[in-house]
């Protein structure tokens, strides 16, 4: 409907991103139906067995043997992903009470609630790898695990909520759709769920911007300003350029990652250009132009030094986000305690009745 259809390089039917998610889901079922093999045979080398399962495009499941590095990489990636969903609630949560109508408030509330759900699906997926959610939350709170740097930018106006939906959720979808084909079963299945829900997020953001850009000149200017500020940080969401991305090659070999950072970034740019035209807004890149040879747009790279600075903790809102999360965690302690006390009391009662 909003023209976010693009032809993927080689996989999936041309049904846009949602079509690709469905194709990934079908591929998952199809691979399961092929059920190429069971566990390793008694004298089979475990590494060879693992490689064989990956080669056959079969999913690795929680109780399968897997290399320690594969497990560690997945825990790190899934945890970071879960943290991002949870921290990502803040910039938009900020606007729930100030959204311009009851309808917009209800929609934004539902979207932010979805993000909490995404965080929980992902924590549950990480837990299948033998780490507890408490441990992961602790790693976030003490700063040893990161979340996506994009959420360290402030939401200054209502148009920012639109820009986040369109660009930030949009970039997240481009990143996540290939993860629906990830070799680790629980992660792939969680991503299928997440991606189906994300498309509502992207469309509601686009609709906010469309409404603003067809409103008063001041509203249009506000929408343009939001895009000007969110464009490059969104491009940076795909991570450093391939040449400087040390983990990528191994993740590709394990089929955790399916496309490189630069490929995904290019895909995102190519999608956005036409969508911006329909909005009547400009992407803030004077060098953005169609390259006939590459059949893609040439564009200006985001500032990767800035990205590194934000990752290191020096973005505009890093401190605020972490403080807020710690406070919410501490202030929620009584809820956790009350729930546990209530459960204990009920268990006691049951025991008495049984006795």
């Amino acid at each position, binding site marked *: 409907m909003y023209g976010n259809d693009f032809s993927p390089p080689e996989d999936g039917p041309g049904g846009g991103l949602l079509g690709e998610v469905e194709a990934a889901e079908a591929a998952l079922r199809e691979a399961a139906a092929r059920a190429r093999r069971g*566990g*390793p045979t008694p004298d089979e080398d475990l590494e060879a067995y693992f490689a064989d399962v990956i080669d056959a495009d079969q999913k690795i499941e929680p*109780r399968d043997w897997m290399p320690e590095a594969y497990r560690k990489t997945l825990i790190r990636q899934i945890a970071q992903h879960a943290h991002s969903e949870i921290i990502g609630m803040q910039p938009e949560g900020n606007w729930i009470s100030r959204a311009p109508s009851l309808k917009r408030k209800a929609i934004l509330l539902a979207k932010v609630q979805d993000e909490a759900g995404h965080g929980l699906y992902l924590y*549950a997926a990480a837990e*299948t790898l033998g780490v507890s*959610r408490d441990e992961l939350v602790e790693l976030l709170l003490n700063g040893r695990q990161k979340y996506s740097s994009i959420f360290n930018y402030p939401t200054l106006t209502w148009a920012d909520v639109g820009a986040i939906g369109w660009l930030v959720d949009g970039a997240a979808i481009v990143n996540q759709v290939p993860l629906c084909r990830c070799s680790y079963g629980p992660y792939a299945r*969680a991503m299928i769920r997440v991606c189906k829900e994300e498309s509502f997020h992207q469309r509601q953001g686009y609709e906010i911007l469309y409404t603003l850009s067809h409103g008063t000149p001041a509203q249009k200017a506000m929408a343009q300003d939001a895009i000007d500020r969110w464009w490059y940080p969104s491009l940076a969401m795909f991570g450093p350029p391939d040449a400087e991305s040390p983990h990528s090659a191994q993740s590709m070999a394990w089929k955790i990652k399916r496309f490189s950072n630069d490929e995904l970034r290019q895909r995102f740019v190519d999608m956005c250009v036409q969508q911006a035209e329909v909005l009547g807004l400009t992407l803030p890149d004077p060098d953005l132009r169609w390259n006939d040879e590459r059949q893609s747009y040439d564009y200006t790279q985001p500032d990767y030094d800035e990205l590194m600075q934000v990752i290191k903790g020096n973005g505009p809102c890093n401190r605020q986000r972490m403080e807020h999360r710690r406070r919410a965690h501490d202030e929620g302690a009584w809820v956790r305690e009350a*729930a*546990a006390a209530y459960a204990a009391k009920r*268990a006691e009662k049951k025991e008495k009745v049984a006795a």
Partner: protein
Amino acid sequence: MRARRGLSHTHVGSLHAPDAELALRNARDLYTRRQEGVSIWVVPASAITASSPDEKDAFFDPAADKVYRHPTFYEVPDGVAHL
């Protein structure tokens, strides 16, 4: 979760809860925000005993050599109806 009347329950995911009643409520909030189900069962993970996929070959071996359990094993002579 049972997606619709007439379908069997299917596993949809995991969650944390102090007791079964809260687990049900959390499951409703987490997994049915878009009317994905009409019935939910929750089971504590500790109550599940799983056959490991590692055991797949040996554990499920007994079924491997009994092709005659499948109707396609039998050759039906030409002209036989309703079989």
